[in-house]
């Protein structure tokens, strides 16, 4: 199978992510959600009491909170979902230790190959558990921790407990509460003071079974002056019934540290992707979210940066692509809590074949955050008259001495642009793809080459057959 991975998908090829493997679960909790299921998950993981109590408390919050009345339409039966599935007895340190069918899946997704070429470490999560993990030896020697969050609770309990759920408490929103109750897997990263990790750390999240919910929980701590680039990819096969992916990601970027978090989300179009991602950045620190949303039925995701101390910076670059039956309600949130903080939001969305993209963003400047700067640019490209784009910018400015910029544009692929390109011999699909790739180019060029290539290829797959 490994040879399949290198082959470049051609137009007309079926989506290479749409396959599933017959993997036998080691343990699968029954369908549905209640306190027993939550206890069972906690027992399976032999967790300390504080975590079990945290989960049960979170379940109560989840049950008490109403569904959000904004964003996209969520048509989910929470009792018709499997909340926990353990695919393997233990986590592999080499791919040979990973059960064959699961290894095949990741081979097809190209993960081991990418690992060899340009990654500093990899975590692969299949259903509820991380089934493979690696980290380059020199990073281990420098004190870098890159493990799954379950293992982190066992091995680094004090470190985890100090930060866990401090950035996103369960009561933050209904889906953060759900994640807090049933979470499993996800990455835990600690980068010690001054350590700069040159190559990206990557996590890959794969849902394989039908009606499976995935609820990973990621916690990243970048200590003073340290640097890390973390990348996550997500895919699932297409089933006729809906599934749920609801993650919580918390990031702490300390003094003068930098963190870049890149997501390439390509979930199947039956997945609700309802994710809470938030970072706090301290003095002179930089947090960057690069967020590519191509798949899912509905995505609601607004990566946030809270700038806590002077000189902190936040950048959020996002691309959303929605096609038939898809709604991408994505955006960004920046909160300026200290003077001289700056933020930049660039959002690009593309809608085609009746797809809907919404930009939803918040810029908040607290009183006293003098000389803060924020700039927001959101551009939407609509490919046909059946598709839709909306912009919901929110501004809450409680300080006079600030510079805030907001620009928004909506454009349609013009007949004249298409004619110009086709008059030079480009077919219409080729011309549309070129216009779309050009539209997102300012963001693509921010990505490391390998991911830029991947993004362009995914856009091409999305564009396939879009015209005529």
């Amino acid at each position, binding site marked *: 199978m490994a040879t399949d991975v290198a082959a470049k998908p051609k137009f007309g090829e079926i989506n290479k992510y749409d396959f599933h493997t017959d993997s036998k679960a080691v343990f699968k909790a029954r369908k549905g959600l209640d306190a027993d299921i939550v206890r069972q998950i906690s027992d399976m993981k032999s967790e300390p009491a504080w975590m079990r109590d945290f989960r049960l408390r979170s379940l109560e919050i989840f049950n008490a909170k109403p569904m959000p009345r904004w964003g996209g339409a969520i048509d989910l039966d929470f009792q018709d979902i499997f909340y926990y599935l353990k695919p393997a007895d233990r986590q592999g340190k080499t791919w040979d230790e990973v059960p064959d069918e699961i290894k095949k899946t990741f081979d097809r997704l190209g993960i081991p190959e990418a690992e060899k070429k340009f990654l500093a470490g990899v975590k692969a999560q299949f259903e509820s558990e991380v089934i493979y993990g690696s980290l380059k030896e020199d990073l281990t020697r420098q004190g870098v921790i890159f493990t799954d969050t379950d293992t982190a609770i066992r091995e680094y309990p004090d470190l985890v407990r100090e930060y866990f759920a401090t950035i996103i408490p369960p009561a933050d929103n209904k889906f953060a509460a759900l994640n807090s109750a049933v979470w499993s897997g996800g990455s835990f990263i600690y980068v010690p003071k001054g350590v700069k990790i040159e190559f990206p750390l990557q996590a890959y999240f794969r849902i394989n079974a039908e009606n499976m919910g995935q609820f990973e929980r990621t916690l990243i701590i970048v200590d003073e002056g340290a640097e890390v680039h973390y990348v996550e990819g997500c895919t699932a096969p297409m089933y006729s019934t809906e599934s749920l992916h609801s993650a919580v990601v918390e990031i702490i970027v300390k003094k003068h540290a930098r963190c870049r978090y890149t997501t390439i989300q390509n979930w199947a179009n039956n997945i609700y992707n309802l994710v809470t991602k938030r970072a706090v950045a301290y003095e002179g620190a930089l947090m960057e979210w690069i967020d590519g949303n191509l798949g899912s039925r509905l995505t609601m995701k607004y990566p946030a940066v809270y700038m806590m101390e002077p000189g902190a910076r936040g950048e959020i670059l996002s691309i959303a692509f929605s096609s038939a039956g898809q709604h991408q309600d994505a955006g960004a949130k920046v909160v300026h809590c200290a003077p001289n903080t700056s933020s930049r939001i660039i959002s690009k969305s593309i809608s085609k074949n009746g797809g809907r993209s919404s930009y939803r963003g918040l810029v908040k400047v607290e009183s006293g955050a003098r000389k803060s700067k924020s700039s927001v640019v959101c551009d939407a490209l609509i490919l046909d008259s059946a598709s839709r784009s909306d912009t919901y910018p929110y501004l809450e400015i409680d300080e006079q001495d600030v510079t805030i910029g907001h620009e928004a544009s909506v454009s349609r692929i013009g007949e004249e642009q298409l004619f110009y*390109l086709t008059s030079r011999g480009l077919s219409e699909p080729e011309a549309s793809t070129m216009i779309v790739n050009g539209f997102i180019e300012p963001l693509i060029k921010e990505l490391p080459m390998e991911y830029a290539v991947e993004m362009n290829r995914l856009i091409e797959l999305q564009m396939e057959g879009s015209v005529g």
Partner: protein
Amino acid sequence: MSETLKIKDLHVSTTDGKEILRGVNLEIKQGEVHALMGPNGSGKSTLGYAIMGHPGYEVTQGSITLDGKDVLAMEPNERARAGIFLAFQRPMAIPGVKMADFLRHAATNVRRPDRKEGEELIPMREFRKELNQKMEQLRMDKEFARRYVNDGFSGGEMKRAEILQLAMLRPKFAILDETDSGLDVDAVRLASQSIADIGGKDMGILIITHHEHLLEHNRPDFTHVILGGRIVETGGPELALELHKQGYDRIRAAYPEAAAADAALKENEPAGAH
């Protein structure tokens, strides 16, 4: 073997039903240079668009054939692959798309007309070499290839980009729609020289222009005068010179019906459009 682009009794309307061309007849052989002159709004650009297949224009009568093949049945990209090229008077900006990427796709498709989306392109190294060579010949900066297609280009840069495309695509038939407009005298001279260098016995050229400067190095074998949507007179290079010096008064007087049609077309038109 020399091929012919044949336009017979061509009637063209805009999609909102306004008739602009009212029976154009024109035959261009490979290797020939034709000049098409006429006052603003007489239908010059429309003819270029109709030959290339612009979706905003509808052919209501007549035919266009390239060596017997029905051009009107082809999509714009098929016309390009069959060897027809239109240098736009106002080229479109395509933000984020580099000139080099665009040209590599275009050149591959035109040279391999059967190519489907996703199939191999001309090898990068080979293409770069050719592109650099052509840009050097046209005295264009290498940086040009990395800029986004027509995005933020000056008027002169746009026209030169069109000539670069002409050089790379080497069509059998090129229609140059006012490739001189917006250029200063030196730039027109350079453009004129470049076109002459690119052309030759394998390229039939239709030059749409108001002026004779562009014709300096491209002495037309034929000059056609279009008025009121019809070619009313055809002559040699001396006709182009006469029109440039003396304007269209003699033509209007000689063809009152066409002049009246021309005036009627302009009445319904907002100022500045054509």
